[in-house]
């Protein structure tokens, strides 16, 4: 059984933490944390930076995104600004939290091209060098200006989750990799495609490779859908559900109400509670939005 690592109260670490271990933070850490075991930020603990662990438990302060391979839990009294991503996310009432919650597997290359957080961490990057922390951890990396229209090639490639078959190039990239500096039209005439280090000379090649893979993949129709870009739809689930709902609403608008069927159907339900404080609408003549409810 491995011993738990501890950053005690009163101690500040500026740098990054990585390893297969459990870590409890009572003090302060400025920098990214990636541990294979559990990470607990205790009530006195303060962490500024993105954290990833098998289980992340926050009782203190975290400014940065939390990724749990199994669990992220925000306990009562915690103060957290960032995004939570894990297959299980728990927020206990009394926790203070601003940000978004993604109940999802970390690193899974799902259709989250438009999610800046997941895009950045779809492959967990090696820790940044000390002192190179982004000034605002809640907006990690350079996002290649997701909302800027125009030349599509570079932003799309930059937002592409790292394909599983080719994790090496981006995995070695620092978070602020200047992928978006790639030229968008002319094919690069330099750069060794077998060289997986992300240098400026290799960036165009890398961009082109990612773009080709994207074009060959089934993601293309999503990427080409300008409406999705405009709406900043976060994942495919939203899209499907919205369409579903819209179709259903449209159908509702067109379909006349069969009052008899509705009434006979209604009689099969258990009786409502004794007293309804709400005045129920009369059936028939339904014109959505025009009925007075008071």
């Amino acid at each position: 059984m491995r011993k738990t690592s501890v950053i005690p109260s009163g101690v500040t670490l500026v740098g990054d933490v990585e390893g297969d271990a459990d870590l409890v933070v009572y003090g302060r850490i400025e920098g990214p944390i990636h541990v294979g075991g559990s990470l607990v930020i205790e009530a006195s603990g303060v962490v500024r930076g993105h954290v990833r662990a098998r289980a992340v438990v926050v009782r203190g302060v975290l400014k940065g995104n939390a990724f749990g391979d199994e669990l992220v839990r925000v306990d009562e009294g915690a103060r957290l600004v960032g995004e939570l991503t894990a297959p299980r996310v728990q927020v206990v009432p009394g926790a203070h939290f601003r940000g978004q919650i993604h109940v999802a597997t970390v690193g899974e290359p799902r259709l989250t091209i438009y999610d800046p957080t997941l895009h950045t961490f779809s492959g967990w990057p090696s820790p940044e060098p000390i002192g190179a922390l982004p000034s605002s951890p809640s907006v990690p990396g350079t996002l290649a200006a997701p909302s800027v229209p125009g030349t599509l090639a570079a932003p799309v490639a930059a937002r592409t989750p790292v394909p599983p078959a080719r994790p090496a190039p981006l995995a070695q990239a620092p978070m602020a990799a200047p992928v978006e500096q790639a030229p968008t039209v002319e094919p690069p005439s330099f750069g060794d495609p077998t060289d997986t280090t992300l240098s400026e000379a290799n960036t165009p090649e890398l961009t082109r490779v990612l773009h080709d893979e994207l074009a060959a993949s089934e993601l293309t129709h999503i990427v080409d859908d300008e409406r999705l870009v405009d709406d900043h739809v976060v994942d495919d689930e939203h899209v499907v559900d919205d369409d579903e709902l819209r179709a259903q609403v449209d159908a509702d608008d067109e379909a006349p109400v069969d009052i008899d069927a509705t009434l006979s159907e209604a009689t099969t339900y258990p009786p409502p509670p004794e007293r309804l404080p709400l005045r129920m609408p009369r059936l028939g003549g339904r014109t959505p939005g025009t009925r007075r409810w008071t």
Partner: protein
Amino acid sequence: MSTEHAAGYVGPGLRIRGRLSGEGDVIVDGSFEGELAIDGRVAVGPAGRVKSPVSARLVTVEGRLDGDVAAGEVIVREGGRLHGDVRASRVGLEDGGSIHGTVTMDFDLPADLE
């Protein structure tokens, strides 16, 4: 679900559209679409489906709620799905529940982290 006093109830199979406002509690096991502005508690049952902005003191979601929520407290229980932005003083998310949207609460980080 506490029902010690009478609550507004949208039973299964019932669909309502419109604006619902006033004092009291509302339980939705059916379908509601429109707007919910309740000075009290709103519960979306496991089979309930609400598509509307919701403002209330306490919002409990066990079914599905599409819409922005402004409340004192929001609890999303197992199986509950909340699609929309949440502004509340207290937010609870249980295992198996999900919030798709931005959660906003008023609090301060330590000064040097702001």
